[in-house]
């Protein structure tokens, strides 16, 4: 069921506040470091301001922001700059060992696999929703997610996440 708009399209401050962490965390999941996530984060909200898309429902706005975050990071991941840059160790926001370990295991997955993991486990989206958002078949998403889980299990050598 569609959720009516929580904010007007003009109420940009509230929109940024509300979706701030969602956009940032997805960007981080895709690029794996804070510096690039910072850039993508700003770019996404600037696009929102510039393009002024008209949303009919809040879930439409959310989907738009997720999609644009993915697209912005896609462009970034393929850029010349990224291919030539080695990230510094101070670009991750973790301090305890368990989280650092999970971060390192996640980085062994492809950016696409990390995106699926993030949308499923953090955004709590169903396979069908992810499929709609990414323009893929539901069966494809299911297969890709299963594969991502298997890879992660292999890396982590534990069974507690399936």
């Amino acid at each position, binding site marked *: 069921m569609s959720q009516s708009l929580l904010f007007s399209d003009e109420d*940009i*401050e509230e929109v*940024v*506040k509300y979706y*701030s*962490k969602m956009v*940032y*965390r997805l960007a*981080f999941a895709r690029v794996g470091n804070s*510096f*690039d*996530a*910072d*850039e993508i*984060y*700003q*770019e996404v*909200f*600037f696009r*929102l*301001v*510039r393009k002024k898309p008209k949303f009919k429902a809040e879930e439409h706005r959310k989907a738009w922001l997720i999609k644009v975050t993915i697209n912005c990071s896609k*462009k*970034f991941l393929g*850029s*010349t*700059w990224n291919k*030539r*840059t080695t990230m*510094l160790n101070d670009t991750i*926001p*973790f*301090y305890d060992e368990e*989280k650092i370990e*999970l*971060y390192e295991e996640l980085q062994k997955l492809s950016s696409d696999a990390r995106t699926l*993991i*993030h949308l499923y*486990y*953090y955004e709590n989206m169903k396979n069908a929703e992810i499929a709609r958002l990414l323009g893929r078949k539901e069966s494809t998403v299911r297969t890709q997610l299963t594969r991502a889980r298997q890879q*992660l299990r292999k890396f982590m050598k534990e069974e*507690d*996440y*399936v």
Partner: protein
Amino acid sequence: MFREKYQKYNENIAPSEKLFQETLEKAKENKKGFIFSVKRSSIAACTLLVLGLMTFTVDAASGGAIRKALGLEKISIYSDDENATAEIYQDESGDNVIEVKDQHGGWTKITEDDAEQLVIDFHVGSSGYNFSTEFTDYMSAEDISWRIYDEMSSFFRDVLKGESKERKEAVFKKLEDIADKFESEAYKEGAHMAIDDLKNSRNFLIYEDDILEDENFQSTGEDMKVADIAWYKIDIDTIKFDKDGWAKVVADSVAGAKGHLEISMRKEGNEITEINAKRTDGDE
């Protein structure tokens, strides 16, 4: 459960308050202006090139012209480091220089909020060199930084073309000295990367292993053994690309191998997208 673990993991991941406030401010203002949001290494590279350009070849008058053209009467630095500063000043020799200091080495931005159209027009003193670059539409921060970087690199290549080996070495030495003065390791790294790019644009040093590991590599000659690892040198000026973007060159061995390396490569835009190599027999 993994879901809980992952949710917890994400608790640490959030935009900094500064980033959030800055984004909010910009979004509220709905500015159309250009936003320079440049990674620290690329800002270092650009800054280095600006510094190098200005301290090397620009006299005081044209330095002022650059400042005016850039609209950089005031540079605002937004950084994690509240003590970050940017200054435009005349050095001892009267040259105008831009100095960016960010001790923390964190998030750094230069903004030019009111620019509907930004024209960077460099007229480099009495040297006769100049270039102009214009941003008439919104470009992403990354595009802008790379465009400036490319323009600057291209400028330097032009400046250095035809110069004596000694002059080139002196220029690189001076640039490296400037790079070493950056207090931030990230700036240093970016600056040295920029200098290496400049150096490598004059001569390619190709390592056979790199070619073998290149996914586009197609072996057309005899198998290369590990023991045959060698350096080959190509003078970039000898590379001529045809209308389809292909070029063939012969690389001379510098050390460790007999003979030559015949290389064909394809260029799309500014990038080499395909390289095929074949080693000739040393007795050929």
